[in-house]
């Protein structure tokens, strides 16, 4: 179930992912890499970025992503899952009992 209070973790993970990708870009571009070899720093940052990305995807799935995907695949209305079914319209008064 979506919990808006957990959105902060999504934003934090997204920021962490950006920071890791930026650090990796810095190491790749400023390092003196040789053709065909990847430095240990780059490998570490690539792995950390991948972990952050997987965590982000998981959090996104929990915070609405899974609901959105199932709604698109099944053609269902996500608002009914989140807000519940719409209240039934009041029954029209019967001519025999109505005042």
């Amino acid at each position, binding site marked *: 179930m979506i919990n808006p209070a957990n*959105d902060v973790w999504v*934003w934090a993970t997204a920021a962490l992912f950006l920071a890791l990708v930026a650090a990796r870009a810095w190491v790749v*571009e400023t390092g003196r890499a040789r*053709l065909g070899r990847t430095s240990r720093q780059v490998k570490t940052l690539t792995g950390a970025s991948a972990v952050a*990305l997987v965590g982000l995807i998981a959090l996104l799935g929990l915070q*609405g992503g899974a609901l959105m995907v199932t709604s*698109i695949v099944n053609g269902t209305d*996500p*608002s009914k899952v989140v807000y519940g079914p719409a209240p039934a319209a009041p029954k029209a008064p019967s001519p025999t009992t109505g005042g």
Partner: protein
Amino acid sequence: MTSTHTRGDGRGVDDDPVDPPTTALPVQRPRSTPPVPPSSRPGSPAGSTVSVGIFRWLSPALALLAVALLPVAAATTDLDKLDGWGLAKILGPAAWGALLCAVAACVAELWSPRPRIPMLGAATGVLILCSTGLPSVVEPVARFSTAWLIAGFSDSIAQTGASPQGIDARFYWPAFFAQWAFFRDAGGASQLDTVLRWFPPAVVTVWTIGIYALARSMLGGSRAPWVAAWLFVGLNWIEQDYFSPQATGIVLMVTVLTFALGPLATRRTDPAGVPGWPRPHEDVPRLSVVRRWMVSLLTPPNRPTLPARQLLLIYFCASLCLLAAAPEHQITPFAIVGQLVLLAVVGRFRGRGIILVGVMAIVVFILIAGREFWINQLGLIIGSGDKGAIAAGVSDRLTGDTGQVVVKYLRVIVPGLTWLLAIVGAWTYWKRRRDLVPIGLAVVPMFFAAVQSYGGELVLRIVLYGLPILAILATDALRALVRNRGRVTEVFLAVGMAVLFGAVVLIRGGNDSYQVVYPQEVALYRQVSAQTPTLADKNAPSAQIVALSGLGPTGVVGLNQHGSGVLFGACVELADNPIPCTQNDNRPAAIVSYTSIEKQGVYLYGKTPGWSLAILQQLVASGKYVITYQDGFNWAVKRTDLPA
């Protein structure tokens, strides 16, 4: 991509007299002779020399003359005579003269033996002012009702500091509105009327800078990039350059594309001489397909020849653009990411990680920040809510009097011709560089039609997102046409440029009879908004100020107090059903109408002149409304049961 050398005909561009190359870095080489004598240009009479002195003052003089004619054009244009043909019909000789002078200034500098970049830039600015900016010059305030409504969005955020709920779905992408609310507050201004008026020429100038930079990377040469920029301005009839999020979105898109195809571009072949494709020499037997693919796969993309810190700065700026685009506009980020994915698949740029950044920004923003939107309106995202984008974008709009229909057919023909010319350009580009990726970049936005629903304007966006690349490819076709054909072809193309810019003024101004806005209409709406009482439920139909039709400056203020003019029940537009929609307790608090609404009915819907005044009489006769203001076709009424 950064290489500009031709391969197909075995001739480098170094000896190209039509469009000599430019270099990214200045090359300091001693020259014993002038670079290219004017008499060596093809088609020039043998032995003739063109004086550089003429070109030194000709272009500035023409540009100054164009600018000087603009106030005359503004003073001699009678906007009351606007009809179905729009702005072009009422423009006087001064306006057309200014446009011709601007075109001539560009052409004169282009024909100069040594074109000056500052002068070409200035002439391009004047050209934009005299074509795209002509309505801003001759009309007293900004046209286009959507621009005023968006100014109202910014006003709403400036008043409360937050996006209002339940008024408009566009508020789920609030970056543009919040940005201008911030600028407005920071500047100490109370409204953005002047910004609205001059926004189109200003933003098109920024776009054009991007097109020039992009064309420099893709075409090379010193003249072709300018032609690409002018072609872009001349073919841009789409009018998405009004005060709007998508206008800023295009700036971000062109910026990212310029990075990807410019400083981040990787070359397709290995500079060390690995046999690639196309074959390097005519007499070398071609390698097998498998071998060529293997070589291509195993050859790492070349690093751009930039210092690491510059590369990192470019990554940062590109990522910033992608992060900014996500909350800015609904579909522009998809266009950018789609084009980047294509470039990444074919291995054309370094820094493919920025695609991840872009995708992450879109997904996180929509899923988290736009949660309420997709939960309630998922159909709008996936396209199940509207199946008629093409019908709404093209065929449904072919209505109106003769002028309206002619202009609308021109709006269909011009993109068709643009695509035709671009396909010829793609063929030229293929022959020269064995590269079909650019035309693919123009095709990518078409996939939105399949996956997204955006109403009638989706078709316009598809054309607009592809236009930068289409203009550049079309320029390549024109360059191939001019090459070795001499001055006569160049004169022919210069005349074509004047015709094109005349056409763009006609097409863009085609709806001006009902898109023009007057200062008194803005004042009218502001006064009505200030005098209409606010209800507790501001989104209730009975709290709304509604225009007879969705035109004019409606919504420029008071969105927080009076909503955006929503009617109750099945009522969509008051002009269609004025009496049934105004007789019960849910009727609007106030109703306004403008001259533009009257003219829209006459020229677009074929109504009899005076139809809006007839509705006014019906409303007053019903006893439900009382007139609070009337001047010609501008009028306002309010509910009789509201306090005075």
